[in-house]
């Protein structure tokens, strides 16, 4: 077994399997919570909680499984640009649909 530290170069941080196990367990917990929450009547908060949990799970995958937490600023900026454009598409399109119900003026 070669020493993990020797494998690392200056730019290439190797994430430890312990981190992966912790994140994996967190994802499993999140899945259980989101299923459970859907059986409870929380009114308007049901979709909000479901999406919030999904966002947290996705963030964990991005930061740790995809190594973004240990990546360069450029990588983080790239991820941000993707999310921003995605939200622009959804947000501005939905704004049109929602505002149609508001009538003429």
């Amino acid at each position, binding site marked *: *077994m*070669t020493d*993990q530290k020797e*494998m690392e*170069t200056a*730019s*290439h941080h*190797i*994430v*430890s*399997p312990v981190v*992966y*196990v912790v*994140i*994996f367990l967190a*994802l*499993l917990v999140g*899945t259980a919570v*989101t*299923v459970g929450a*859907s*059986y*409870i*009547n929380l009114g308007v908060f*049901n*979709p909000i909680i*479901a*999406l919030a*949990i*999904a966002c947290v*799970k*996705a963030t964990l*995958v*991005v930061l*740790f*499984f*995809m190594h973004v937490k240990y990546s360069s600023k*450029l*990588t983080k900026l*790239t*991820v941000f*640009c*993707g*999310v921003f*454009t*995605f939200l622009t*598409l*959804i947000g501005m*399109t*939905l704004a049109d*649909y*929602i505002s149609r119900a508001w009538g003429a003026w």
Partner: protein
Amino acid sequence: MSDSTALAHEAPEHGHEAHPAYLRHHFENVEQQADAAGFAMWLFLLTEVMFFGGLFTAYLIYRNWYYPAFVAASHQLSIPLGGFNTLLLITSSFTMAMGVWCAETRRKSGLVLCLVLTLILGLGFLGVKTVEYGEKIEKHHVPGFHYSIDSFTHPDLNNSATAKDKPLALDMARHTEVYFSLYFAMTGMHALHMIIGIGILGFMIYRAQAGAYTNGHVTFVENFGLYWHFVDIVWIFLFPLLYLISRHS
């Protein structure tokens, strides 16, 4: 293939240490090459985010417009099957991340094991999907010529998922076809990406066995890992949006 080959290197020695075999000649060094490849993969994932973005936009609009139809239609999906699939994919993400670690730490057999596990989990996911799609076909919930709204105008009172459902009015019942259009478009597109990923995994297992990724050249495994995690993230959103719309009365 006419590649850009430099006639004169600046460095006087051209030995193996200064120049691994897999370094392409338009790069100065392996760090630059790996950096560029990783960045390119992230940019490709951005295109995938925007590709699925259109589908999520459509979903959010129609869920807003036809909420009762979406609730009733989502009760036709099986939470045990969907939840199990979610567990399969999350686990496959874990095994893929471990595979990348094995490649980085030059553990060849560990890498092969992780890739094989990821492949099996992915196949399992597709198997469950096939069962689910089969159910939809049986119940005439595939949009198009054979679509039937009977399940929504006369909900099945024996089934626990739909026991408490009220029958939908005719026009709202027709809108369940929009839900299933989105269901098949989104899960179908996701499954297509899984199939492509599984194909590449097969190729990678073969190459990993030959030691191609445990000699320091981990780029391919790392970047495939990014792709696989992305496919997992899409499912992380699809699961609550499609399966868990409202399971309370």
